[in-house]
């Protein structure tokens, strides 16, 4: 940029030689004029020299100037030639993988293929990074005055300070009859379902505060969960699992799922994962209504559950302090981690799938790196957190009794104070950040509280993935598309990008599997059994001789192979040495050697 700025300066002097340059609004007014008034003669000399210099420079730089930008008729050059630069860190955000190494030998076709694909991906990264600059919304934030903690700012103060539409997002629903409440926001963050312990279910469009349905199932409710869209939700009732539509009509009663305590919905797989009091983890494919897997975890009552949004693995917390990771394809846990002394009370995994936050009966809050399964941070909370929830931007909310605390950056820096805190009117039983909004929903014994947490939600949504403003038609279209690209449950594994990698070990793996399945190795060489021959040719001596012959032949082949290999390696080494000699000879200084 700096060098580009020089060019117009040189042009200016060139013009000045003939006459004074006309004033431009971007130059400082009167600066040139003052100079000329002060020392007329000197300036002329200076100008002359300058002109000469500039002419020289021009001669030197002519080809570079031409290449850099178009010279306009006015004599100006483009001050920002070439494509606009894109910040490196933004490009990094869109980088999926490291650059491929090109094959060493000729292989022109492969080389070309790799270069082409690399160019294409680079271009797409650049364009995405460039598009990223233009995103319309910025994330929210909250800063205290000097010496003031942000956690002391009350919700009422925040609601007063922000605009009307946002202040309406802080509200309390006083539902003291049927509590405590569980809650769930739909994927777009538009809709909310509340399920009271004593059978009350309410669905609402919480931003417009429109009630969609309200029913009482006259039975205890353990959990509620939206399915893929806001037209259906699942309710874990006293005995069975029920599916209702948004008008409160019972669609299904699924008797295969009994005593369900917690549920998670995997939106890209269309799977509803449930855990029950009978220690069963079950998966229901909601697109076809089939049970995909039922796993007996053999760990007692299961009431702590969360999903990893990055790879659709289910995390379960147990009473003995372990957290286990499950996929529907395996009857055993993928990973078992001992996280706490005493039972695990709550688990949560962040959006990128890197960190897991757990809280236990030992009143500790721990942060784990799930790539290495190692603890990163451990905090002590005086009362212990009963519920945890992570927002899209990585804020952690923890409920201790009737106080909801929100923490920032729990994994990168040691946290001493909460970012925000709020006291609700009963013990907290459900906690959920609203996607794409700076809102935290709290279900408690006295109803529901929607509180404002600036900086919690992702500011820019993707219209093709989850659009809070979509119309009915758009939703229908999205539903069809989403169903078409439903991921099969067999593809759930710890590394979701496994499918995009080269499967190197397959042959060996296949062979091993085959050996395991058959019980013997079909490719193994069978032991030589000499044929029985008549007319006395199968005397024990003759048989022994024949055996020896075969063994001898095998031995010869083995020796031959090893010798051949030896020769080959020797030859290669020789060639390498030769090559290195040849390369050394090519040095420019060799001509002086004698």
């Amino acid at each position, binding site marked *: 940029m700096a060098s580009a700025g020089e060019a117009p300066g040189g042009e200016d002097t060139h013009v000045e030689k003939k006459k004074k340059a006309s004033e431009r609004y971007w130059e400082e007014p009167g600066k040139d004029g003052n100079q000329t008034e002060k020392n007329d003669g000197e300036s002329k000399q200076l100008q002359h020299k300058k002109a000469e210099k500039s002419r020289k420079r021009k001669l030197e730089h002519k080809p570079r100037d031409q290449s850099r930008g178009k010279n306009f008729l006015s004599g100006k050059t483009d001050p920002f030639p070439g494509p606009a630069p894109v910040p490196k860190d933004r490009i990094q*955000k*869109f980088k*999926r993988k490291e650059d491929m190494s090109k094959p060493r030998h000729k292989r022109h076709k492969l080389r070309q293929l790799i270069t082409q694909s690399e160019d294409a991906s680079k271009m797409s990264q650049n364009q*995405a990074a460039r*598009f*990223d600059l233009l*995103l*319309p*919304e*910025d*994330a*929210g*934030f*909250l*800063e205290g*005055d000097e010496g003031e903690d942000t956690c002391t*700012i009350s919700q009422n*103060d*925040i609601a007063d*300070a*922000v605009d009307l*539409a*946002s202040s309406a997002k802080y509200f309390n629903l006083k539902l003291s009859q049927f509590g405590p409440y569980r809650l769930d926001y739909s994927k777009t963050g538009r809709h909310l379902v509340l399920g009271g312990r004593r059978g009350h279910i309410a669905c609402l469009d919480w931003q417009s505060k429109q009630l969609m349905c309200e029913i009482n199932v006259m039975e205890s409710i353990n959990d509620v969960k939206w399915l893929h869209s806001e037209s259906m939700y699942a309710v874990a009732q006293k005995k069975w699992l029920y599916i209702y539509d948004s008008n409160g009509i019972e669609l299904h009663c699924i008797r295969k799922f009994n005593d369900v305590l917690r549920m998670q919905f995997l939106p*890209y797989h269309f799977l509803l994962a449930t855990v029950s009091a009978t220690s069963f983890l079950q998966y229901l494919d909601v697109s076809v209504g089939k049970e995909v897997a039922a796993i007996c975890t053999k760990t007692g009552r299961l009431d702590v559950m969360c999903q990893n*949004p*990055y*790879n*659709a693995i289910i995390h379960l917390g147990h009473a003995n302090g372990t957290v286990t990771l499950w996929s529907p394809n395996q009857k055993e846990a993928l990973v078992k981690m001992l996280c706490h002394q005493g039972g695990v009370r709550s688990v949560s995994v962040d*959006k*990128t799938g890197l960190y897991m936050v757990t809280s236990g009966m030992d009143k500790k809050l721990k942060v784990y790196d799930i790539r290495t399964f190692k603890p990163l941070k451990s905090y002590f909370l005086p009362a212990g957190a009963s519920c945890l929830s992570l927002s899209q931007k990585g804020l952690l909310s923890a409920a201790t009794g009737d106080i909801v605390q929100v923490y920032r950056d729990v994994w990168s820096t040691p946290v001493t104070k909460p970012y925000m805190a709020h006291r609700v009117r009963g013990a907290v039983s459900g906690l959920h950040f609203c996607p*794409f*909004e*700076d809102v935290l929903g709290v279900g408690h014994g006295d109803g529901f509280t929607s509180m*404002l947490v*600036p900086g919690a*939600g*992702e*500011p*820019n*949504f*993707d*219209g*093709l*993935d989850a*659009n*809070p*403003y*979509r*119309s009915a*038609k*758009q939703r229908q279209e999205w539903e069809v598309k989403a169903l*078409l*690209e*439903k*991921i*099969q449950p067999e*593809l759930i594994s710890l590394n*979701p990008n496994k*499918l*995009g990698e080269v499967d190197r070990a397959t042959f060996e793996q296949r062979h091993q599997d085959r050996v395991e399945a058959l019980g013997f190795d079909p490719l193994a060489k069978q032991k030589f059994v000499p044929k029985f021959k008549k007319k006395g040719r199968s005397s024990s001596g003759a048989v022994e001789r024949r055996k020896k012959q075969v063994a001898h032949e095998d031995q010869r082949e083995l020796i031959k192979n090893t010798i051949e290999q030896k020769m080959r390696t020797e030859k290669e080494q020789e060639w390498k040495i030769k090559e290195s000699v040849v390369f050394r000879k090519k040095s420019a200084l060799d001509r002086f050697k004698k």
Partner: protein
Amino acid sequence: MRPIKVLSRNPDDYVRETKYDIQRVPRNYDPSLHPFEVNREYARALNATKLERVFAKPFLASLDGHRDGVNCMAKHSTNLSSLLSGSCDGELKIWNLTKRECVRTLQAHEGFVRGIVVRFCGTSFFTVGDDKTIKQWKMQSPGYGEEEEPLNTILGKTVFTGLDHHRREGVFATCGQQVDIWDEQRSSPVRSFTWGVDSFSSVRFNPVETELLASCASDRSIVLYDMREATPLKKVVMTMRSNTLCWNPMEAYYFTCANEDYSLYTYDMRNLEQPVVVHMDHVSAVLDVDFSPTGKEFVSASFDKTIRIFPKDGGHSREVYHTKRMQHVICIKWSADNKYILSGSDEMNIRLWKANASEKLGVLAHREREAANYNQKLKEKYQHHPQVKRIARHRHLPKNIYHQAKELRVMREARRRKEKNVRKHSKPGSVPVVTEREKHVVTVVK
């Protein structure tokens, strides 16, 4: 005033203004908002592959009207919708492909029509037949009351079996007992090439180096000529006879010949020692071959009642077409717009096929085209995944062809195994490894 900001979107920025606008779709390409992208892409690729097989309906139309087997066809040089075909009873028909009807019929020869070629200007065409004549005809049909008569008739000494026209000049070549170069203005050949005693089955001008020709002879050889020289350039002798050949229109130093030994061979004209690629898949003699105008693929017609499409550098076909009623396919053409394939067969029909079996014909809307391109790329990207591969390469074959192919495979395997065993039990080096490409060339003569 407290420094505070809470997300607050104006719905007007995200919702369309009137119902006549299109919906607004704000995008955010952040990878963390799009989890499972590989898996979802894979699901899309699988769907695209399945849909491709669902929509693979290559057969478009059958043009019937000939009263004997179709022996030869010619594309019009300037008109996409015209096709000329000659049958075994000497009848010649000109077809309008858009209307799928015959526009003109004429009795060109007595006996077979052996070859048709349209002049480069498209105003007239030449035919040769079993009655030892070369006839030139006007492309326009005769007016009312006029008789169907050739512009020009040349009586040759021997039977002609094929002909081809020069790309730019009034010169054409015929083959029979020798290869003759004719000037359109004269009634005797300008030049005759012979090389030993044999008869030729086809002759083709090179589309780029227009003075060069190649021909297939019945003594199992392929001979190259330069029109300006008095003697042939060189020839390659193979183990079996080649029926026809076709030059690659884009890389015109390559030509592909259809051989009697069920395979096609692509040669580099500059090096005839061994073919560049051996294309195997047919289970009977290959009778005709034609390149696509892009030079990336070619189509072959075989005695086994199927048509196969090969990539120019692939050993196996990417597509096979067959119908219950199609008999031995005698001649094949790839249309000049790269979209259709025309096949003429023994049972008197000409069939029109799509070159890309699942392609949607007609004008595509922009979004449709985008979707098709995207799907194509997805299929390419995931083509090696076992599930995708299995679906993409599955073809239903008639029972006899399926079994014959299996038999051939077993035979080839057995031969290979035997050779291996022989090699194992003989003196090292005495039984050299002969590759499939080297196997079929006997000699190259210059």
